[in-house]
């Protein structure tokens, strides 16, 4: 059987997208804020940012569960900010010359990401009373032909691959409060299609554009993507989360958690599994360690 073409992938994914439920209220029960039991787990303990560090060991069960709630608000907030950039970049590329074949799927992508942000924001605002602010700023710069598109879709793919590791684990974790498990499971269900699309499109753009780039541009793309992986992980260690969880020095906590060998090993293992396809496609040359 010959491999599926990009156009065939787009057709297949679009068909599935059309038949999946759009309204989050169809699949998610949102308890009243007052009746949500805060003593539940909202993030799997092993995926809490400080897991494996001395701080984690010092927390009792109650404090760990409190932290798991604010970690969920942090994780959903970073999803919202990631999806905002994604929606903006995809909207800009609708019917762009060279991307006509994928335009139909880009519409589904946009629609689905908008919906995901509604789920995430509903949780954050309804139960946490806030969405944590973003700490990203983009500086405009010049790009080689096709470089900006490749970087955009590769960043999207990297972001979604890492998030999905968390979603797929937490969507199956019955320790979690049903609302948190449902949000993660819903997101994972839809992201499965985005991951397929992302890999196919990034490989396509790479084969199309990279042969025309200078060695310097290729090296710059690789350095950017490696830097992006690190920057993405950085946001998982959020002082705003630690402040709300009642830690006295949230910035020191963020630094110490990031620097601890246990969290570095967690990031390296997850990065290696999520991004192997980027090495296999020749887009990254050496494993990105976090």
């Amino acid at each position: 059987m010959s491999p599926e073409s990009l156009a065939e992938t787009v057709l297949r994914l679009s068909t599935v997208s059309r038949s999946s439920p759009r309204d989050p209220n169809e699949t998610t029960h949102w308890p009243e804020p007052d009746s949500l039991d805060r003593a539940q787990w909202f993030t799997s303990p092993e995926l809490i940012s400080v897991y494996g560090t001395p701080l984690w060991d010092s927390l009792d069960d109650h404090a760990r569960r409190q932290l798991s709630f604010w970690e969920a608000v942090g994780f959903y907030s970073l999803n919202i900010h990631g999806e905002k950039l994604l929606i903006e970049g995809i909207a800009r590329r609708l019917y762009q010359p060279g991307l006509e074949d994928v335009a139909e799927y880009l519409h589904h992508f946009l629609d689905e990401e908008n919906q995901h942000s509604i789920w995430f924001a509903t949780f954050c605002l309804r139960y946490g009373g806030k969405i944590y602010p973003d700490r990203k700023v983009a500086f405009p710069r010049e790009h080689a032909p096709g470089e900006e598109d490749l970087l955009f879709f590769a960043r999207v793919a990297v972001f979604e691959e890492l998030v999905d590791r968390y979603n797929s684990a937490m969507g199956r974790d019955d320790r979690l409060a049903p609302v948190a498990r449902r949000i993660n499971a819903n997101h994972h269900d839809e992201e499965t299609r985005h991951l397929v699309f992302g890999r196919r499109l990034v490989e396509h753009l790479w084969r199309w554009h990279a042969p025309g780039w200078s060695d310097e541009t290729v090296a710059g793309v690789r350095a950017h993507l490696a830097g992006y992986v690190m920057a993405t992980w950085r946001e998982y260690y959020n002082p705003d989360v630690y402040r709300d969880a009642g830690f006295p020095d949230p910035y020191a906590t963020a630094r110490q958690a990031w620097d601890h060998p246990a969290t570095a090993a967690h990031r390296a293992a997850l990065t290696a599994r999520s991004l192997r396809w980027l090495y296999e496609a020749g887009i990254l040359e050496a494993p990105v360690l976090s």
Partner: protein
Amino acid sequence: MTAGASAEAAAREALRGWVRERSAAAVPDDFDDHTPLIASGLVTSLQITDLLLVVEEMRSAPLDPASLRPGVFRDIDTIYATFLADRLGS
């Protein structure tokens, strides 16, 4: 030296130290608080999250998200004036 002035000097030195350690490009010999950070490639957009955490820790307070515009990262002098002068200045 007043307490404010020494806090300012320490903050500027810490920012220069951060750039020297994290810079994405070679730091020039005459690097100072007016050296362009973005235009020179010393700092890229991907390092901003890390830089903001350093700045927030110096302030001991979060930043106003509305203040995060590309221009405020032009050089160390501007970063200091934008985010730190009101908290540490003499």
